[in-house]
């Protein structure tokens, strides 16, 4: 068994499991005024401080949510509504072409239902947003821009985005920038304060915490309309009883992930490079997607295209051999589609369809990499034989390792 899908979700850290398990039997609503409520509130606030410290933010900037998807929706819709209320001309929503669907679909929903005009910011061949295009799109009419959303690091190919440069371009015109940073904190340095971001999404289960806990880091004084209405527990922009055990486990995981990041990032980068090098030895026409420079990408992601294969065949054959990876971000219906990220990078549809993401995390070992590499050649050969006519066409190939 080799679990190489840490970008989908990574195992909980034992310390986070212990914290969560210890709190699960404890009663207390953090909004209650009695002693049980106060005990829960104390855990939540200590966790908030711990999260803020791990993510380079102030405790008051941490808005707890139930997921990264909720935080992305809150940022995109909440910023749009608040900015448009201040000035009805602000209808443009600028999103990079490689955003997660939690951002892309939230923006598209605003276009369909709320009169937003969504403009997609193009990326280059490694998946990095084109800053000249960002500058041009903003300066075309800065007064009409409601917000910009550009992720910290891409979840499929791992390319790190020039967030501070985007912030600089937007800041000239007082435009708020949101960054989806769910893949980042365990792998690259992330600090909210000083980034100039108005809002940033993080989630627990990508860094060793539980599924079902996330946060939107929201700058003080940034106007935001709520998505969920009710008790107003989180700065009146997010309602819902806080999940005290999950919040505490999130904070524990974030703090340990950041503390251990330098050592782990170096280890994962070495494993990842080994995986890529030996994958290309096994399958010489395989191609690497994303930024070839270690400084420009997450250390734990290896994204490869195997010409002449269907990604779903590769995944199924690897799964049968106990190797778990992904063809891109999982789709709820399970119907594989060529990744919008790869297409935005200019990768032809056939090559995009034959791509796999191997993502490493804190439990990854050399044995995992060895197992994946050993399976690759026979799996690719078999998938090629099973390829549908469309993907059997010779791919327009960039040489491996280019």
């Amino acid at each position, binding site marked *: 068994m080799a679990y190489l899908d840490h970008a989908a979700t990574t195992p909980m850290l034992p310390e986070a499991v212990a914290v969560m398990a210890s709190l699960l039997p404890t009663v207390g609503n953090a909004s209650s005024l009695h002693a049980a409520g106060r005990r829960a509130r104390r855990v939540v606030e200590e966790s908030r401080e711990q999260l803020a410290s791990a993510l380079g933010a102030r405790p008051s900037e941490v808005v707890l949510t139930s997921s990264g998807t909720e935080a992305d929706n809150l940022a995109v819709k909440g910023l749009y509504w608040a900015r448009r209320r201040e000035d009805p001309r602000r209808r443009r929503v600028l999103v990079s072409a490689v955003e997660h*669907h939690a951002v892309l679909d939230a923006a598209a929903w605003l276009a369909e239902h709320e009169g937003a005009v969504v403009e997609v910011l193009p990326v280059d061949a490694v998946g990095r947003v084109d800053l000249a295009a960002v500058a041009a799109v903003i300066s075309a009419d800065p007064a009409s821009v409601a917000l910009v959303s550009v992720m910290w690091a891409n979840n499929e190919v791992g390319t790190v985005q020039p967030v501070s440069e985007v912030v600089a371009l937007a800041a000239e015109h007082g435009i708020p920038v949101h960054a989806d940073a769910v893949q980042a904190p365990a792998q690259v340095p992330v600090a909210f304060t000083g980034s100039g971001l108005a809002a940033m999404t993080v989630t627990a289960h990508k860094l060793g915490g539980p599924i079902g806990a996330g946060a939107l880091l929201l700058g003080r004084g940034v106007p935001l309309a709520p998505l969920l209405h009710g008790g107003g527990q989180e700065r009146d922009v997010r309602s819902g009883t806080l999940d005290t055990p999950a919040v505490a486990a999130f904070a524990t995981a974030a703090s340990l992930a950041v503390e251990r990041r330098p050592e782990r990032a170096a280890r994962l980068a070495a494993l990842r490079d080994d995986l890529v090098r030996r994958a290309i030895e096994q399958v010489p026409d395989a191609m690497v997607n994303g930024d070839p420079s270690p400084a420009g990408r997450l250390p734990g992601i290896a994204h490869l295209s195997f010409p002449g294969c269907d990604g779903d065949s590769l*995944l199924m054959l690897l799964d049968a051999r106990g190797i778990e990876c992904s063809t891109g971000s999982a789709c709820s219906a399970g119907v594989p589609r060529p990744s919008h990220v790869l297409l935005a990078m200019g990768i032809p549809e056939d090559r995009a369809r034959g791509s796999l993401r191997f993502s490493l995390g804190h439990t990854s070992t050399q044995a995992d990499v060895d197992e994946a590499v050993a399976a690759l050649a026979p799996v690719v050969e078999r*998938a090629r034989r099973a390829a549908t006519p469309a993907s059997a066409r010779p791919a327009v190939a960039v040489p491996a390792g280019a």
Partner: protein
Amino acid sequence: MRVLAAMSGGVDSAVAAARALDAGHDVTGVHLALASGAPDHSGRSRGCCTPEDARDARRAADVLGIPFYVWDLAERFRADVVQDFLDEYAAGHTPNPCLRCNEKIKFAAVLDKALALGFDAVCTGHYARILDGPDGPELHRAVDVDKDQSYVLGVLDARQVAAALFPLGADRKADVRAEAARRGLAVADKPDSTDICFVSDGDTAGFLRARLGDAPGEVVDERGEVVGTHSGAYAFTVGQRRGLHIGRPAADGRPRYVLEVSPVQRRVVVGPAEALDVSELSGVRPRWPGPVPAAPFRCSAQVRAHGEAVPATAYPQGDRLVVRLDAPLRGVAPGQAVVLYDSTRVLGSATISASAPAAGSTTGASRTG
């Protein structure tokens, strides 16, 4: 064996997969996404057949504890089944899309991919049997005659039959439902699917009208006399009696039936019931689930999924097939399949391209589509 179980989300395919598992096979479930959904704003298609069917299939696979994947065959299905269905109707034929799907999708695209991926067989919930015979596996009717689906499997060739598993062929539907319930499969009480899967509301005429447009023309009798009008010849099927909207009664006062549909001339010919009688069928694209016959042979011929099989003699002629019926058969439309049986065994099939009327019929000429 490594078996790929095609799981539609219905009760039959779920129990078939469970049976394959019980038989000791290494089973993987796959749901075929066949309906084309319009891509949404983000470029993703939201289209599975129906999301509920995909979910039901996934739940059944979970209960059985087998791996499960969704294969997107929407483009192949659109080109090979839906477009073929439209083209056939536009040509005045009466196609059977289930047959085409079995021929082109389930036992071609899916089977080929499965074999290439290292599977040994494809398992489905069809009611039919594969029995060992002296010349290899034979395709036979199901034991439950009401559920028998051997007609729509008549298009399989010997290679496809050899790689197919139909674990339900010896069962009655009610028993399969009871077994599903016993196994904890939530699909146990899901209703049977009856209509054409891509015609969502069962309104085939409406489906065709929306895609083929209005093509008004005349309804004429056997002598060529105009007796009415229609808004599209494709909406008529040979043998149809109702919905003709003929103003004037026939001279003899007897009911009239559609005898011929000619979309190019936009003409629908009607006449008395006995003019529907045919005694000879010509078929194209013959398919043989067993040995390919060289000489004429006695058989029984069936021209509809739930029609009766009648005694006949078949004359294989390379890429054509002629079937002479011992007694006339009523209402045979070009585009339908004729499936040939020896008792319960399927011997072959062909797509009907023309028929010749029974002797003594009032229409003189043979009809072609």
